[in-house]
């Protein structure tokens, strides 16, 4: 009896353990497929589902939140997929979320990625909602792009080959730079000189620094110049005035210069007057002639006075003069 009971227990344990293992495996598989959680249905429409099959995972921000439960072709080029998404995570998915189909790794199965939208105040999705979709480029498109890239790369390489050949042959500036040994020596010499110059500059700067450091900023004129803003403004004005004055002086000097040049060159009335001796003589003789002419004119006038034709006029003038003299 005892032996039979122990056998019963052993068989019972065996059966229970085996059943538990089976049930546990089924539970874990079902759990992975979100069969035992409360789900909501979401829809998205694509032009091409790139081999998506029923049961493929749905990810939101990289977390598995559901599975693809239905794929239906509505019309030519329009495929609607139904996704079962866990209710507990659906509250994070907003109405402006975008669904895209991508591959899980290079050789993995396809997954639906739900990308969060940018509108933070958008409402959360509810069961039956259709969210926006975004079709990524497929492997074929990628390969065709790669093909173009390859062709371009081939062209680039052939051009590069030509350039490198020219460089090796010593053609062009770059070729000369690479191949010309004299140029290299010159450059080396230049660098050496540059080093020396730099060293000299450095010494000079250090000397200037020493001089500057020796300036007594507290009491010297330099300090006043460097620190007193009122003096600085005044000095500015002085300099401005000085600049203006110097411009004026410059202008005057220029005029004087021109004037003197004119004088020297013999142009102008003054120079003519001062320099021409013939003119002076002419003027002198003219003056003598004028003097003689005036004397003769006086004589003529006297003669006119005594002429019977003009005598009346002159007497009239004398009478008027006398009357005015009496009045005064």
């Amino acid at each position, binding site marked *: 009896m005892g032996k039979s009971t122990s056998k019963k227990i052993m068989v019972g344990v065996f*059966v229970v353990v085996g059943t538990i293992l089976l049930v546990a*495996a089924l539970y874990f*598989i079902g*759990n992975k497929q979100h069969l035992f959680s409360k789900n909501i249905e979401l829809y998205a429409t694509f032009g091409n589902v790139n081999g998506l099959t029923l*049961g493929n995972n749905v990810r939101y921000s990289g977390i598995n939140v559901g599975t693809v439960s239905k794929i239906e072709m509505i019309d030519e080029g329009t495929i609607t997929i139904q996704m079962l998404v866990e209710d507990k995570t659906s509250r994070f998915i907003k109405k402006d979320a975008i669904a895209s189909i991508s591959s899980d790794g290079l*050789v993995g199965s396809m997954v639906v990625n739900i990308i969060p939208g940018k509108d933070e105040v958008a409402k959360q999705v509810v069961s039956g909602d259709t969210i926006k979709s975004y079709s990524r480029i497929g492997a074929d498109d990628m390969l065709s792009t790669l093909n173009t890239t390859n062709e371009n790369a081939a062209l680039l390489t052939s051009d590069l080959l030509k350039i490198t050949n020219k460089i090796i042959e010593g053609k062009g500036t770059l070729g000369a730079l690479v191949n010309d040994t004299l140029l290299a020596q010159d450059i080396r010499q230049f660098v050496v000189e540059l080093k020396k110059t730099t060293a000299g500059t450095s010494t000079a700067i250090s000397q200037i620094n020493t001089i500057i450091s020796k300036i007594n900023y507290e009491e010297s004129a330099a300090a006043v110049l460097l620190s007193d803003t009122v003096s600085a403004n005044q000095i500015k004005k002085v300099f401005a005035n000085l600049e203006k004055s110097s411009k004026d002086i410059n202008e005057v000097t220029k005029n004087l210069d021109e004037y003197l040049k004119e004088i020297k060159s013999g142009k102008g009335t003054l120079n003519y007057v001062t320099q021409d001796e013939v003119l002076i003589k002419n003027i002198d003789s003219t003056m003598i002639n004028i003097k003689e002419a005036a004397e003769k004119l006086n004589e003529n006038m006297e003669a006119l006075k005594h002429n019977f034709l003009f005598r009346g006029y002159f007497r009239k003038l004398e009478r008027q003069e006398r009357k005015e003299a009496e009045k005064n």
Partner: protein
Amino acid sequence: MNGTNALLTRTKSFFAEIGDMTLFAGRFFREVFSPPFEFKELLRQCYNMGNRSLLLVGVTGFILGLVFTLQSRPTLMQFGAESWMPSMVSLSIVREIGPVIIALICAGRIGSGIGAELGSMRVTEQIDAMEVSGTNPFKYLVVTRIAATTLMLPLLIIMGDAIALLGSAIIENLKGDVSYLLYFNQVFDALKFGDIIPATIKSVFFGFAIGLVGCYKGYYCSKGTVGVGEASNSAVVYISMLLFVIDFIAVFVTDIFFEI
């Protein structure tokens, strides 16, 4: 002409055996649902076939998972796909290798055992004595054994699969620094109901085939002690062949009903 006759005879006997076995199976289905039920004998057989096979199945399963992982690693590493190891191993073991290997081991242990046991009972006329004494030997000996293998083999296969996956996980943990949590997470990520349910249904048929062929060969054993050996031997051969036939049909049917 002689050769043709011999071939014809063998073909006839082959079909006759299949017919016999079908009738034997039909008799089993008639007897299994009719009282009296031999629960005590069923329990004993379950213990013998289930519990006592567990060690063999466990060790085989563990080594199977271990070796399978070790052998697959270099190839997967060449493709840089070591991370696919849990998926690959779990799918292979649960779908195919686990059920078939464990069923073959059970065919060797249980099938030959049943064949030898019933065969020796037949040649020592114990079965005849039971018939004379009024006990139904078919119900007592055959029904309990076939029922026990049908019930126990699926459980043995589930346990064997689990132990094989554990062996694989240990190797992955030691060689590939994959944690047990990650390993089993990936295993259940890869497995679908379409993998585990058909495999379990298939293992029920495997168990039934092992019990049926073993019992048939033993029950109809003849030619004395030589016949016992032959019954035992032919039981294993037939079972092995039948297992692959069932496996093929199961995969075929699974392919229709579950999208693999």
